[in-house]
């Protein structure tokens, strides 16, 4: 899915000063994160038998090895970053890779993405869909909040009715009112 646009060559242009984006991102934290994940997997793997009497490989060996490789990859990535490895955002159809990050839009969309974790079990699909729909459209610049809320609610309700008919378990329609 990389570089969907044919004009990806644009990303090679030097970034203008003051564009809000650093010219060469050095994401050491990704290397650190990989080492941390690798360590967790190694710990999880080592707490299980590494060998088995007849099968040579026990249940713990694979997670241990995967964890070890992730740690190694984390270290390699850090070394590469120190040597000046370039990290350019991927080009996508509706996103301009070279433009600076719009933090407000990102965090609004992030709320919409995490919202269902708490809202779906307690508020039901139609209301959660309406809220998430409104938040995403707001993040992408739409100001018609009420219209979007209604559209989201309608999509959520129709999906609930249709997919429940098809046999999916989507919980209750509107749990706050008990149905």
């Amino acid at each position, binding site marked *: 899915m990389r570089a969907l646009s044919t004009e990806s060559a644009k990303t090679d242009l030097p970034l203008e000063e003051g564009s809000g984006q650093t010219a060469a991102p050095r994401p050491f934290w990704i290397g650190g994160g990989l080492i941390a994940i690798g360590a967790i997997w190694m710990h999880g793997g080592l707490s299980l038998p590494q060998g088995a009497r007849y099968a040579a490989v026990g249940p713990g060996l694979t997670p241990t090895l995967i964890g070890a490789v992730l740690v190694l990859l984390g270290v390699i*990535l850090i070394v590469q970053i120190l040597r000046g490895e370039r990290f350019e*955002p991927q080009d996508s159809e509706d996103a301009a890779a070279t433009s600076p990050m719009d933090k407000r839009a990102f965090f609004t969309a992030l709320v919409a993405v995490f919202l269902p974790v708490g809202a779906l079990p307690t508020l039901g699909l139609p209301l959660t869909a309406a809220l998430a729909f409104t938040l995403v459209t707001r993040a992408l610049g739409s100001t018609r909040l009420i219209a979007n809320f209604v559209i989201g609610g309608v999509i959520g309700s129709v999906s609930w009715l249709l997919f429940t008919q098809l046999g999916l378990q989507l919980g209750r329609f509107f749990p706050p009112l008990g149905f």
Partner: protein
Amino acid sequence: METFELLLHGFSVALQPHNLFWAFIGSVLGTAIGVLPGIGPALTIALLLPVTITLAPTSAFIMFAGVLYGAMYGGSTTSILINTPGEAGSMMTALEGNKMARAGRGAAALATAAIGSFVAGTIATLCLTFAAPTIAELAFYLKPADYFAMTALAFCSIAVVMGRSRTRGFVSLFLGLALGVVGIDAMTGQPRLTFGTLQLLRGVELTVVLVSLFAVGELLYVASRYNKIPGVMQPIKGQKWFTREDLSRSWKPWLRGTAIGFPMGALPGSGSEIPTMLSYTLERKLSKRDDFGKGAIEGVAGPEAANNAAAAGILVPMLTLGLPTSATAAVLLAAFQNYGLQPGPFLFTSNPSLIWGLIASLYVGNLMLLVLNLPLVGLWVKLLSIPRPQLYAGILVFAMVGVWGVSGAWSDLLIMASVGVLGYVMRVYDFPIAPALIGLILGPMAENYLRTALAAGQGNPMVLVGTPVSATLIVLCVLIFALPPLIQRLRANA
């Protein structure tokens, strides 16, 4: 001869009215998602999985095949008319296709793309029809060590070929492998990496990860860097569709594109991007005219044929060996597993109606898509008038329904959001996404083969290279690593 009879049986399945209906639904959906941004065939099939569980497997797979082929047709429309490819496989089409559209030859570009897709799709399906049973027959002789070597080769080539750096390819692959070991160990029944939670005992669902990486990751990425300037649509009204000269310039690239696309699609890691790039480069080299880069029809005909042939190519290893070579194939494999079916040689003998019905439906679907795409192109283009904010919001709602419908567990929604953030980070720092999905679905299979092979060899690791097939494949794995630096060193010394 036997293949021919089986294919006829397949047609009797595929031509049943309800299966024709699902093939039509799949083709329409596939074309629509090919045109629309933000949704690809892999994501669509993943979202359809929970819904289709009430359908008979044959009908479901006939619909999925329509989605897979339809996306390849639909992707070319936006590439040509607006210069924004809906699918990765349509990237090269935009280069010449959009130039043709700007020069008032958009209709001809659309026609060569659709007819080329049809020709390539049909020839490639014919190749699949005859290659698949032969490979399935050979696969009966393969041992666990051979299968392990095959998965290892798939891992290495996918991680090396996809993305800009090998390290990032492997990071993506190993993150997928790490998620794949979560849950109950199939061989000993012990819980692994579940952190004491009941919800993680059944493992991490591919559907959830795929929806998160593709839909949620893309949504967050677009929100953070939204490009509000819409592309300019080139008009096609009143243009000539296809002249005799267009045909004489197109037919050879169609055939060459098919010859490149089909075998490349069957190789792990090549997806639909590499065959289309190869086809474009080849046509450019072979062209005696100087209109390449200014709207050469060969540059549309070749890559479009290649991407459709590649779509048939990915089905060969998937159906005969159970080996997915792209993200879409990984989801198809998950779909088979959802029905309790394991693709591979045994499926050809245990469930011939499904396999041959699916293959026959590819012929039918291709014909449907040609009819759907050529005269109705104006209708598909209208889909692009859906405003982007509402489109992405709708995608999130469907992602939510898909994930919630799988299990009804809030933990899956939490995984959706968290892996979605991972998908965002992968886009920002250019990590390829497909290796993670292949790692997640192939990882547990590879581990199973490894442990079965070692158990049969009483723990002797030499059993892993004990057969000619496994030894050859392991050597290929080593070459994938060793060759590029070696060539680099030789060049430096020269």
